[in-house]
């Protein structure tokens, strides 16, 4: 019972989940293996969105325990986001130095714009 009610009350989000799964699959199948490392790193940075949850938790925290835990969670989440993006940026920077690196950065650009398109589609 619980599960069914939960699903019906969140049906929109579940559609979104299914849509996003396909967007994710679409993205990867277009990427040459050369780009897997930057892509993995970029994806790593993106799932740092978990930090938003940490911020919400912390913003609503009342007891000191949840405040401390939230504090740690926000720090860890920030590490994930900042570290992930800086590392990815460093990788891309290296590709960009060379003339023919344009191929790679263009590809990576496409990946991300695909993601954005996917997000736009979702709304």
């Amino acid at each position: 019972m619980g599960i069914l009610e939960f699903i019906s009350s969140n049906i929109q989000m579940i559609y979104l989940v299914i849509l996003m799964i396909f967007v994710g699959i679409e993205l990867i199948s277009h990427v040459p293996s050369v780009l897997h490392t930057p892509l993995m790193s970029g994806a790593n940075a993106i799932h740092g969105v978990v930090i938003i949850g940490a911020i919400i938790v912390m913003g609503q925290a009342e007891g000191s325990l949840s405040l401390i835990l939230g504090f740690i969670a926000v720090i860890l989440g920030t590490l994930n986001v900042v570290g992930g993006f800086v590392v990815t940026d460093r990788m891309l920077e290296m590709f960009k130095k060379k003339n023919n690196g344009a191929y790679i950065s263009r590809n990576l650009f496409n990946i991300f714009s695909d993601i954005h398109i996917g997000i736009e589609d979702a709304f």
Partner: protein
Amino acid sequence: MTFILGLKMLSKPDTARNGNLIAAAGMVLAIFATIFLYKDSEGNHLHNLIWIFLALAIGTVIGWIMAKRVQMTAMPQMVSFFNGMGGACAAIISIIEYNHLNHVLATTTMTPEMSASYQGKILIILAGLIIGTVSFSGSIIAYGKLEGKIGDFSIKGQQVVNIGLLLAILVSSVLFYLGVINGTFWFYIILLVSVMYGVLFVFPIGGADMPVVISLLNSFTGVAAACGGFLYNNYVMLIGGILVGSAGTILTVSMCKAMNRSLLNVLVGNFGGGTAAASTGSTAGGSTKEITKSDAAILMKYAKKVVIVPGYGLAVAQAQHTCHELETILEESGVEVKYAIHPVAGRMPGHMNVLLAESNVSYDKLIEMEDINPEFATTDVVLVVGANDVVNPAAKTDPSSPIFGMPILEVENAKNVIVMKRSMKAGYAGIDNALFYQPKTYMLFGDAKDTLVKLVNEVKSL
């Protein structure tokens, strides 16, 4: 929902060329939108802002410094480390939310309606907790192993223990969800078992399988983040998390395929243990020939076509610049030089491309496996720099070999093979390489960088 603001910004990539920066900017926007615009069901803004900003600042500084200072060769473990941080973050959120839920439960009486949403929440919290925790502990172990701080380790009956732990997690979660077992105590038991599973799951996995594991854990963290999205009805988290979850899973599966191993095999942590047993059984035997640096130099200088096969040894020795130098000198004397890149060369797919790109090797010289394999027959000299398993012919010929079926670079078709290695030690799969004993193979022992520098000098002086 006010996060749509952040999302709107996220979806406008027109002007900027660097998608990464856009994604980062989108993230920053989403964070600030959350901080300033988020309202709970009673319309209250978030408080504790000072603490939030302090935590953000600390995280930013540490993350920035770590990411900037890390060597290019250490990238995979860095990614793994940051991934672990994300997993930990998700797990902590689950813990706090559980405590919060308990608190609410204790102070209010349940209506049937609330009970339903409570059960849904418990489910999500549990999923977020387990996945986040496994991802955290697993990533940290992967980080430690890639750093060389933790060795391969497997106990007897490891697979049984792993499966047992996994079952224990699943069963206790189901029981917990159904309310058969309850209370904070069991919640933390599940947390503890998840940590153990994460540790034991990554422990026995050999270096060759590491990229797969990191990619898998990466997608785990994505799913954990998506759980958070459900919890807070937050679309940004949901989209980001699921996107990474599905993309990561597909990436993982395609990597497994490249290495001819089933995902289940990797999941149970089978590979490392199985290999250890096999490696003692099958030693290729025979004798190897060494070659002096000057002979190697002569061989390459007067060759028509040289293919360099870079491996992890090149990355460890930071020899990519010297390698490029050798390439330039050889090209000046009219030798055609190419690089053969195996899909899993190094520690992650594309790792070698990143490294060689760093030392300005031109992109069209990096040839992928399928395209270079037919070319080996017309190649005079193959120079293997710190690679082993990816050129092991056993993958094609020996069905009992643990890497049997894995696509390899068919360097044995070339006229001469020079293998540059530190020692005769086996590669990461832990198996002997028959290639080294073939009559046309010459060994050149030593640190990849030192040896390459000397080779460059030898070629110059010819």
